[in-house]
């Protein structure tokens, strides 16, 4: 096996590329690179072909989901078996998915148990409240990898699974400790299989916001909280002692995105938005709108505001480059159609967006 094949197979740990994602154009360029051996060029050509086929499968799966939603709306209320939930242990390496954890729900590893329990909770949240059958609404198995890398201060969704770091023990602790973080990551999967938002500019900010909105809503639902009792914080339970000592209580605060107690304060008005902003920054604007709408409506966030946001997310097919204004207007019209006898709901939603400049 030559160096490039080792990289492609993920066995070249010198290069640290064991979960390599190479853009298709680069794969194609390497496949034509005469400086590489014929064997290596063939490996890259095969990888490029495989990548293309994999993308077709993903697109077909997303299309099937949307078609099912259009043609078989009764599926939404048909009882379905819960999706399979598996947890893998990376053992501080970076190869995904890692080693399968048997019976994670009763594991002595608290991280494995939390990853399993919270993932099962998110699946139940979507099934119970919105009739959604897993991330893709077609029963997709839910895979989580834990103990990723060493003192890794992050959690992410890579297009097909969740991955959680342990935190460095100073700024952050284990990322599975926060149920809203688990809800946030899984919701990236829901967005991928519905509105299909990109990850740049306004659509990127919306994408992040939707994950915060449903992550926070999941947390409130688990606690059976009304909106006025919720803290609206994102990532409260992953704050480490070094962050808490300095007065930081969360990553973001949906009720006050610019607050000093946030590790990453955000803008609150659309007038502060500019292209190129990190999605985790621009998401403050739609986050604040959701908070304002939910608070004005009152009660439990998932009963009205949540239903409106979910329908705006999943009811219209993909719109990868959707603007914040277009999403705002969609929630206004969905509010009117879902709650025709309660005009105050539409007014609350509309006023919330207007307050943030949309």
């Amino acid at each position, binding site marked *: 096996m030559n160096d490039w094949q080792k990289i492609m197979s993920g066995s070249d740990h010198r290069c*640290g590329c064991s979960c390599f994602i190479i853009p298709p*154009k680069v794969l194609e360029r390497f496949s034509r690179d005469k400086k590489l051996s014929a064997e290596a060029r063939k490996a890259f050509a095969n990888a490029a072909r495989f990548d293309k086929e994999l993308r077709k499968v993903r697109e077909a799966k997303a299309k099937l989901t949307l078609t099912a939603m259009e043609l078989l709306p009764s599926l939404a209320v048909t009882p379905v078996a819960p999706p399979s939930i598996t947890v893998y242990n990376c053992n501080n390496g970076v190869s995904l998915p890692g080693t399968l954890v048997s019976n994670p729900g009763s594991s002595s590893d608290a991280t494995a148990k939390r990853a399993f329990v919270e993932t099962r909770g998110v699946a139940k949240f979507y099934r119970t409240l919105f009739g959604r059958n897993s991330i893709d609404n077609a029963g997709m198995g839910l895979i989580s990898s834990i103990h990723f890398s060493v003192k890794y201060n992050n959690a992410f969704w890579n297009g097909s699974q969740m991955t959680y770091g342990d935190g460095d023990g100073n700024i952050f602790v284990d990322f599975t400790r926060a149920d809203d973080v688990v809800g946030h990551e899984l919701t990236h999967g829901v967005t991928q299989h519905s509105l299909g938002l990109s990850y740049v500019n306004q659509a990127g900010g919306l994408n992040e916001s939707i994950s915060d909105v449903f992550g926070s809503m999941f947390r409130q639902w688990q606690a059976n909280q009304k909106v006025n009792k919720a803290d609206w914080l994102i990532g409260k339970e992953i704050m480490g002692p070094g962050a808490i000592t300095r007065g930081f209580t969360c990553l973001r605060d949906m009720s006050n995105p610019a607050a000093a107690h946030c590790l990453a304060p955000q803008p609150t008005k659309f007038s502060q938005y500019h292209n190129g902003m990190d999605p*985790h920054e621009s998401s403050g604007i739609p986050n604040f709108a959701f908070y304002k709408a939910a608070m004005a409506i009152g009660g439990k966030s998932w009963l009205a505001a949540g239903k409106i946001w979910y329908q705006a997310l999943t009811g219209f097919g993909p719109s990868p480059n959707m603007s914040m204004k277009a999403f705002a207007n969609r929630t206004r019209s969905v509010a009117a159609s879902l709650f025709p006898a309660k005009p105050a709901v539409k007014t609350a939603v509309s006023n919330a967006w207007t307050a943030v400049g949309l």
Partner: protein
Amino acid sequence: MAKLQVERIGGIAGFGGAGSHLRSRGEVELTDLSAAEQQAVDSLFQSQDKPKSSQMRDGFQYRITRNTANGVETIVVPEEAVPATIRGSLKDEII
């Protein structure tokens, strides 16, 4: 001696954002990289391709800067493409 300046940005916590209190930075001597890693870094700088269709969300990105005879060059690449020695050079901090 040639060095790479590295900053890790993004992630669910929003490292390196304009208002963020989180920073993750490091510096690596090119000579500390293995031959394979140096080759990987060169490929990253030579490639203008971006993984536009990636479904990675909350993943880290790395802003890597180097000085060359042609001036300062900076690239932003996904974590998956970054050699281990560079990834290991970073220190996360609250500012």
